[in-house]
């Protein structure tokens, strides 16, 4: 029987460690690697030019690598539901392979495609390689619910065996066995589009800080490891101004797009540590960055409402303010706080900011100063940030705004002080807000406090050349800590005076055997299930009901939504199993 394979690239834009692609090649007569792109959607504001550019560069890189193997990348214009029937027929496809997408939207889309493939008699093969572990496995090990504290997550990961080892890259030999005819007009029909074609103005010859693609990612990985080896230190580095600037060894966008396999990164780090430290096993903290990513993927996989407050069972319902004007000032770097504005400028220009910078601007937008919903911030990051994908972005925003994951909210990042402590010389500000470059260190973080003479000497008058601060931080933070306290006290029914005790704790933080935690959920949050008659009744929709999973303060609402969606997932798997040869590799 003739086997004509199609490998569908979505994330996982690489040829190394790509088991799904390997499965496409395995015993196939022809293989075509496709990427499906709908240019019509490119115009939507939700994805900025830097992200498109990174993607296009990654696709170009794939195409170049495939050329070396006498193949090409097929960029097919359209939507998957339209494209696949067409190509199934045109290329006589018998096998479709792709990397597993754990996000709820991805699972839904893929289930539909798998069903359609089945109707066309196409075998589907899916492999889980975007994360180190299978999110479903971790959820299962945590009594069928995703860990909601990072420590809990780490405890479970500690019990797992090591992630599956990465596969080597596709070889010439493998490709030769399934050589596919490339038509003369391939570039016309299936070439990688340009930014102009997607509706963006020409970017000119500007060299960009973050260059997309697998090749670049491997170079960076080597530099990253070299630097670690040279420093011979795996501890947390001290933060300086330099840390804030884009690093030539930064890897987060490459992990997000899958240009770099997370397992390759994992094993390289691990092997380096063992070699240098001559110890048998590295601590989990070595993989901090990777594990945070895993944590959020796991937390979001069964929760289609993970990216919003309403209807999200793990999200505290906080009465955020709706203020588009203030949001725009924040998004465009016009808050009047140089630290915040510099960060948002770097974000817009380059597409990446350091995690401390993210904490600072997220806190400022939400619980620190502006009291605007984290969803708004999340959307801005989605547009501008190269490494923001659905799970990690939403999860981080919930974390940083203290909307989920049982975070203490007392720690407020000062938009003046935090910046100054991180970068006392103001180098970062001077780079991204050139207007302020002549301000002395003393005033560069708070130019509105500089005497007129200083402002004149620096050629930048506050209120004229640079905006006045949009809030009084002391007053805003006072108000907001009070708001947070009100919300949390209502949630935990805590009536005492301690600020720290207002936040409910979750038993799962403890390490004892997981079976004991089956009743886990929130110790204090669930106790209010029957409101005593003497408390004022609420109009139903606005009561803050962030219960831990499994507990619901108003049982009349029916099954917890994450339970229903999990059941849906189970049903989907059953469908998929019917008559479709599909192997989902879950033994991670």
């Amino acid at each position: 029987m003739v086997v004509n394979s199609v490998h569908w690239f979505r994330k996982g834009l690489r040829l190394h460690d790509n088991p799904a692609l390997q499965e496409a090649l395995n015993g196939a007569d022809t293989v075509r690697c496709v990427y499906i792109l709908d240019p019509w959607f490119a115009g939507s504001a939700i994805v900025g030019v830097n992200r498109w550019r990174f993607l296009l560069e990654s696709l170009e890189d794939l195409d170049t690598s495939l050329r070396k193997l006498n193949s090409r990348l097929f960029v097919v214009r359209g939507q998957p539901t339209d494209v696949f029937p067409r190509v199934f027929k045109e290329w006589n496809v018998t096998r479709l392979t792709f990397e597993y997408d754990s996000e709820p939207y991805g699972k839904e889309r893929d289930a539909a495609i798998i069903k359609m493939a089945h109707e066309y008699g196409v075998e589907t093969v899916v492999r889980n390689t975007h994360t180190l572990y299978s999110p479903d496995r971790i959820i299962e090990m945590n009594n069928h619910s995703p860990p909601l504290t990072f420590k809990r997550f780490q405890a479970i990961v500690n019990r797992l065996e090591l992630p599956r080892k990465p596969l080597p890259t596709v070889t010439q030999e493998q490709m030769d066995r399934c050589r596919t005819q490339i038509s003369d007009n391939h570039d016309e029909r299936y070439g990688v589009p340009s930014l102009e074609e997607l509706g963006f103005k020409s970017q000119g010859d500007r060299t960009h800080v973050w260059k997309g693609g697998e090749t670049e990612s491997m170079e960076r990985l080597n530099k990253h490891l070299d630097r670690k080896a040279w420093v011979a230190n795996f501890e947390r580095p001290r933060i300086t101004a330099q840390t804030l600037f884009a690093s030539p060894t930064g890897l987060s966008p490459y992990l997000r797009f899958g240009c770099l396999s997370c397992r390759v990164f994992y094993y390289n780090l691990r092997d380096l540590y063992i070699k240098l430290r001559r110890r048998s096993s590295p601590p989990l903290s070595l993989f901090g960055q990777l594990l945070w990513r895993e944590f959020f993927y796991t937390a979001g996989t069964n929760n289609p409402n993970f990216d919003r407050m309403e209807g999200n069972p793990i999200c505290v319902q906080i009465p955020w303010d709706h203020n588009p004007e203030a949001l725009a000032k924040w998004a465009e770097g016009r808050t009047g706080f140089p630290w915040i504005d510099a960060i948002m400028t770097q974000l817009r220009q380059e597409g990446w900011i350091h995690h401390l910078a993210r904490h600072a601007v997220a806190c400022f937008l939400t619980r620190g100063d502006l009291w605007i919903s984290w969803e708004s911030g999340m959307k801005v990051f989605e547009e501008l940030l190269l490494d923001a994908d659905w799970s990690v972005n939403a999860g981080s925003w919930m974390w940083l705004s203290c909307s989920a994951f049982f975070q203490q909210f007392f720690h407020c990042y000062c938009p003046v002080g935090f910046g100054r402590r991180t970068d006392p010389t103001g180098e970062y500000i001077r780079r991204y807000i050139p207007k302020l470059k002549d301000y002395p260190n003393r005033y560069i973080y708070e130019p509105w406090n500089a005497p007129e003479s200083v402002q004149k000497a620096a050629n930048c008058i506050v209120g004229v050349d640079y905006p006045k601060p949009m809030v009084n931080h002391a007053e805003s933070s006072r108000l907001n800590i009070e708001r947070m306290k009100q919300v949390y006290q209502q949630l935990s029914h805590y009536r005492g005076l301690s600020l720290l005790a207002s936040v409910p704790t979750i038993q799962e933080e403890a390490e004892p055997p997981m079976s004991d935690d089956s009743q886990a959920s929130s110790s204090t949050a669930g106790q209010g299930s029957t409101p005593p008659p003497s408390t004022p009744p609420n109009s139903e929709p606005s009561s803050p009901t962030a219960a831990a999973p499994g507990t619901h303060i108003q049982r009349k609402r029916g099954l917890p939504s994450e339970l229903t969606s999990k059941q849906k997932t189970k049903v989907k798997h059953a469908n998929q199993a019917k008559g479709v040869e599909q192997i989902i590799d879950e033994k991670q």
Partner: protein
Amino acid sequence: MKRRLSREREDSSTSSCAGPTDSCKRVKQPHDDSGELMPHWTRLPQEILLHIFQYLPLLDRAFASEVCRCWNQAFHMPELWRCFEFELNQPASSYLKATHPDLIKQIIKRHSNHLQYVSFKVDSSTESAEAACDILSQLVNCSLKTLGLISTARPSFMELPKSHFISALTVVFVNSKSLSSLKIDDTPVDDPSLKVLVANNSDTLKLLKMSSCPHVSPAGILCVADQCHGLRELALNYHLLSDDLLLALSSEKHVHLEHLRIDVVSENPGQQFHSIKKSSWDAMLRHSPNFSLVMYFFLYEDEFGPFFRDEIPVTHLYFGRSVSKEVLGRVGMNCPRLVELVVCANGLRPLDEELIRIAERCQHLSAIGLGECEVSCGAFVEFVKMCGRRLSQLSIMEEVLIPDHKYSLDEIHWEVSKHLGRVWFPDMMPTW
């Protein structure tokens, strides 16, 4: 449905719900031929209905009230209208739903004289604050025990014309005469309106929260303290605090104060704050030995001059901005009653000595939270060892702990857990 209604009409000529004895008789009756239970439901005694309805959220109760006349009557029983929280939100400024305007009208019409515990939650729009004042002005028949005006976002009450707000508020002050608890933080309340409050409610006032009320002067709050001898809980800004106030609260006629909350907020950098004499605090402590003093500081580092120079009976301390090592040292020296200490930020010099001193001298400390600070692991373990199991809340951001020759980051959580008697980890932030 139809069958039930007709049966009701057959059974009684007036109301379908008879008195308790009749209802009991009915409940005891066996099922009718078709096995229906429904007749029994409509004859439940009012006390049981009331009890059940009290457990239902408002919306469900409203649905229940549409079932039959009997339940509709139960819905309107005074006991169910003692407490109400008006939620006033505009779609343009809030994501939350608001109390339905028709419901508000109904309440004012039928239940305003039943209301006793009332709160208003308003969003950041002026219309919401206006709506709240509107309702307040109509509460003429009310004898409120509790009134709370709560801004859930930016304080919109402050944007109303002051006179408008004051006149609405004084309606309640004058008519209630038995106000026990009043929360009016972030409002334009002023001295004259406080006089009205005092004139009508001095015997009953127990709780007054008025942080960030810029139109009140120290004399205004002093008037309250002088007249309201039952005052047990008070929250205000530092600029209203005076030696006289503390002495008034400690006068013989006054009950024991339970809880005093003070917000110290800097309006402009370099602001000068007055100091309070130690003797005034001593008087407070003598009069109310168990009172809690909660202080929230939002100052620049160089504005702490007058604070913590002498012993002060503070129990809960929050530093919302950066506070210097030196001030934390003074806290250790002068706050023997300290129960909770929360520090947002300090700086890049380790707080080892200061923490040890706090462990030594603040024997009641049971909660500590540290944000952007630095503490060496060795000193931190020492601190925890000294405090031992009395530390029920230990919230330390991971970046605070600096590994030293004694402990690394991976080892520290075991050491600390050992001394605390429970599993402990520092607070983490995503490093993605």
